[in-house]
């Protein structure tokens, strides 16, 4: 095997693993296949990221058809970073799934879960790696369709309704996206993103291009749950199986943000997006409302999965806030928060899955006294929660640092104030958990003493340690994010 085909293999290995998992029809081998496929993709992503860091962007013509005619896989500083996030999260979550899925899903459907999981991973990685607009749509559909089913697998019957809601809104989003791509194809005659960007220079500001921008913005915003298009997310996260919530929260919305940034800065160009249309202002306004209202709503939730789901809507607002600044520090903040928040939320939802295993549901009621019943799980939630707040020494702090820096460098003192003040709301909702876990006596719904099984605790704690690690040793995340920001502002993809 040569390294030359790594870009294709990173996608096709999980893609092929899916039917294999169906063929074996038994849970243990299906799990092994899925885990191996994710680990391979992670390995490939790291090699590709190292290659990009050393020698610049990698272009891979699929089937040797040269771009712009054939489909191009393009790995640059930005996509390599997101590839590492997605495949890394998939690799950490897969071993966790073994115990968690066995507890939450009917035995005869477990192999299907692993098949869909592989499809979802392949779809998300494909959306990231491809340099072709229509191909983005195809992978988006692979990722979305598989995630609808993954959510519907939840044992709560409301999961079906949540999945259906997500299906309807997600399909509308995908349709809007493909209409936008169609309009762009109409105006440029190409689907290759780089080529499209170059040809758009001549038709910039024409009505169809502006319409395409609007369609793509709305379509992708639905997928990334930008306020007010976020209604599917809290239900989907709350009722999906624990593994699915953790994986989707850490990756799916993040890849959608990636696609949005790709199109904004890589295809339309910053001048069109912020100059011709007031996209920066619109995005800024929506982000502010998202951060504020979703944080407040999170404060009133009893169900912890729902609480952190609303927190996700707010945190996505921080990412799009960084995007709306369209400056070097703003984009750095957006990209680095995309990664850090993925890790943080992944850790939180994995740990909540452990609580759910012992207590049935993770609610503020059932976690009372958790600090003594499940001390290691509980401590993990606290540390990840600190990262969510942005306490120094955690990953979340690094994001906040660049976000505030970006606001200050544009002279927007009020915006810096807004960012720090809203993170105080995060203190409040994280501390609702802390008080319940450490100051309350165990109530009737509280779990019996006993830790989360090791097979689940270890993956979760890998992410908890990553929250601290990426807060103290930021050379990988910040360097990657800064290179991605420079790349996005520099022009073509």
């Amino acid at each position, binding site marked *: 095997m040569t390294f030359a085909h790594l870009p294709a293999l990173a996608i096709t290995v999980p893609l092929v693993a899916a039917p294999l998992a169906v063929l074996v029809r038994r849970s243990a081998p299906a799990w092994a296949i899925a885990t191996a496929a994710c680990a391979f993709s992670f390995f490939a992503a790291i090699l590709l990221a190292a290659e990009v860091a050393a020698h610049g962007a990698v272009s891979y013509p699929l089937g040797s058809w040269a771009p712009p005619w054939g489909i191009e896989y393009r790995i640059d500083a930005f996509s390599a970073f997101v590839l590492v996030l997605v495949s890394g999260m998939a690799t950490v979550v897969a071993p966790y799934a073994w115990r968690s899925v066995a507890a939450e899903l009917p035995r005869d459907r477990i192999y299907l879960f692993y098949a869909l999981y592989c499809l979802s991973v392949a779809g998300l990685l494909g959306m990231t790696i491809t340099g072709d607009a229509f191909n983005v749509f195809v992978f988006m559909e692979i990722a979305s369709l598989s995630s609808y089913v993954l959510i519907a697998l939840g044992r709560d019957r409301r999961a079906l309704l949540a999945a259906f809601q997500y299906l309807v809104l997600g399909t509308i989003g995908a349709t809007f996206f493909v209409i936008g791509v169609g309009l762009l194809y109409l105006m440029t005659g190409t689907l290759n993103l780089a080529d499209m960007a170059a040809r758009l220079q001549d038709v910039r500001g024409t009505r169809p291009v502006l319409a395409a921008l609007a369609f793509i913005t709305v379509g992708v915003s639905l997928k990334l749950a930008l306020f007010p298009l976020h209604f599917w997310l809290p239900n989907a996260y709350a009722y999906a199986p624990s593994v699915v919530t953790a994986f989707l929260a850490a990756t799916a919305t993040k890849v959608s943000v990636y696609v949005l940034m790709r199109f904004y800065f890589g295809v339309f160009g910053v001048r069109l997006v912020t100059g011709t249309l007031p996209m920066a202002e619109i995005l800024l306004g929506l982000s502010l409302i998202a951060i504020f209202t979703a944080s407040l709503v999170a404060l009133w939730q009893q169900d912890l999965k729902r609480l952190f789901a609303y927190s996700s809507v707010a945190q996505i607002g921080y990412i799009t806030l960084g995007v709306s600044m369209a400056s070097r520090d703003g984009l750095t903040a957006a990209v680095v928060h995309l990664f850090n928040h993925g890790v943080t939320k992944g850790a939180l939802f994995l740990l909540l899955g452990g609580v759910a295993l012992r207590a049935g549901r993770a609610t503020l009621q059932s976690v009372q006294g958790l600090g003594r019943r499940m001390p290691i799980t509980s401590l993990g939630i606290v540390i990840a929660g*600190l990262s969510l*707040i*942005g*306490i*120094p*020494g955690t990953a979340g702090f*690094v994001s*906040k*640092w660049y976000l*505030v*820096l970006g606001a*200050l*460098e544009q002279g927007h003192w009020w915006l*810096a*104030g807004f960012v*720090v*003040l809203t*993170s*105080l709301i995060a*203190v409040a909702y994280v*501390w609702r958990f802390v*008080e319940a876990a*450490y*100051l309350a006596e165990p109530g009737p719904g509280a779990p019996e003493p006993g830790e989360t099984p090791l097979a689940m605790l270890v993956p979760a704690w890998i992410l908890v340690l990553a929250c601290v690690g990426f*807060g*103290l*040793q*930021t*050379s990988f995340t*910040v*360097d990657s994010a*800064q290179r991605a920001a420079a790349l996005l502002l520099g022009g073509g993809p």
Partner: protein
Amino acid sequence: MSGAQLIGAALLVPVIGACGISLAGRWPNLRESITLLTAGTLLACVTGLLPEVLAGGRPALHALDVLPGIALAFRVEPLGMLFALVASALWIVNSIYSIGYMRGNDEPHQTRFYVCFALALAATMGIALSANLLTLFLFYELLTLVTWPLVTHHGDDEARRGGRTYLGFLLGTSIALLLPAVIATWAFAGTLEFRPGGLLRDAGLSHAALGALLALYMFGIGKAALMPFHRWLPAAMVAPTPVSALLHAVAVVKAGVFTVTKVIVYVFGVETLAAVRAADWLPTVAGFTILAASVVALRADNLKRRLAYSTVSQLSYVVLAASLLAPLSIAAAALHIATHAAGKITLFFAAGAIYTAAHKTEVSQLDGIGRRMPWTMGAFAIGALSLIGIPPAAGFLSKWMMFQGAASAGHTTAMVVLALSTLLNAAYFLPILHAAFLREAPAGEAAHGEAPAPMVIALVLTAALTLALPFFISVPLALARAVAGIGP
């Protein structure tokens, strides 16, 4: 050991100690021995740094790069040396006291208590020895977080409320005000490294910008308890008394005024502030806090609450002295960190001993207690006299220097505030002594003696320290003068 190794040891020893304490949780005697051993080792490490710092050296340790251009790094300068010495020396005494208090009152969760205490000391060392604002900020937040379980130790509704106020004020001010100030400093100056003369000296900021930034810092450092952000300190009194004694009279609050002094001297620079008169409002706020808190203390019947407001007032002495920007007053600010610590910890020790032996918490219940607990109340008297500023107790020295500093700065108002507050100090301390020693105990009261021996030993030690400090003043004074840039 080299300076860098000693710094690393000072940071790691309490953390390792905390691990050991949690492992030894089932054997209380072993657990407490580990605490004492850790405290002793820590003091040895910190003392080991002293000769080099006194000789003008600045031992440094570069741990890792957190953000491009901003490291997690440590560098020992005189002010940090003084703070680290005070905190680590008093931790030993406090640990002896804790053993008596926690066992005497049969407190729950003792392992958690000792673990968090050790971690709080680690965070304090991080603050004291930090080389830049980011490192300081990191440990500053850490100190808030690890002391929260100590404040909410009892786990009841009162503790929960106190904990919320504590966390709300401390995290609220530091995230909403201090963090933007730090990030803005980075944006303006391109460095966060503390340096003599101030890192903002060459940033070319306007008068208004400097003033705004200074306000963000001064109110953002909630641990200094500048009004109106002082309410967390009385709220923290729900904690067991050893916590109030070491953390809320020494480590946490001194971390606040330490940071204030550090920011004025090493971030803004005394000359810069004096030149543009950006700090002119600060003595007013500090003076107001001194007087207002003293008045509240005067009216508080709960002993710990009275001591807490006295602390609020005494902290603003440091802020006031630092904000006068005269070399002598800066040195007085640094010295007051040490002298107030020794006096106030004695007072809290006595309050805890009274609670343990007699279960009394209110000032109005203390009639005649001096005869039953002569050692405790004797120590209390020494601590109180020191805080009022009566020689030969240590508090007199820093207060005297403060007067001189205010005089040399020509700041009459500050001198009036200092004089008035001395009267107020006397007004809220002397009635306690009067009741304890000169009034008869009410008839029919249950007989009791002194508190358990470890507590009495600890409070006698700190009272002795308060009296002895003037004889060993050369070391703290040399450090304090070095902060202000006055030669020995």
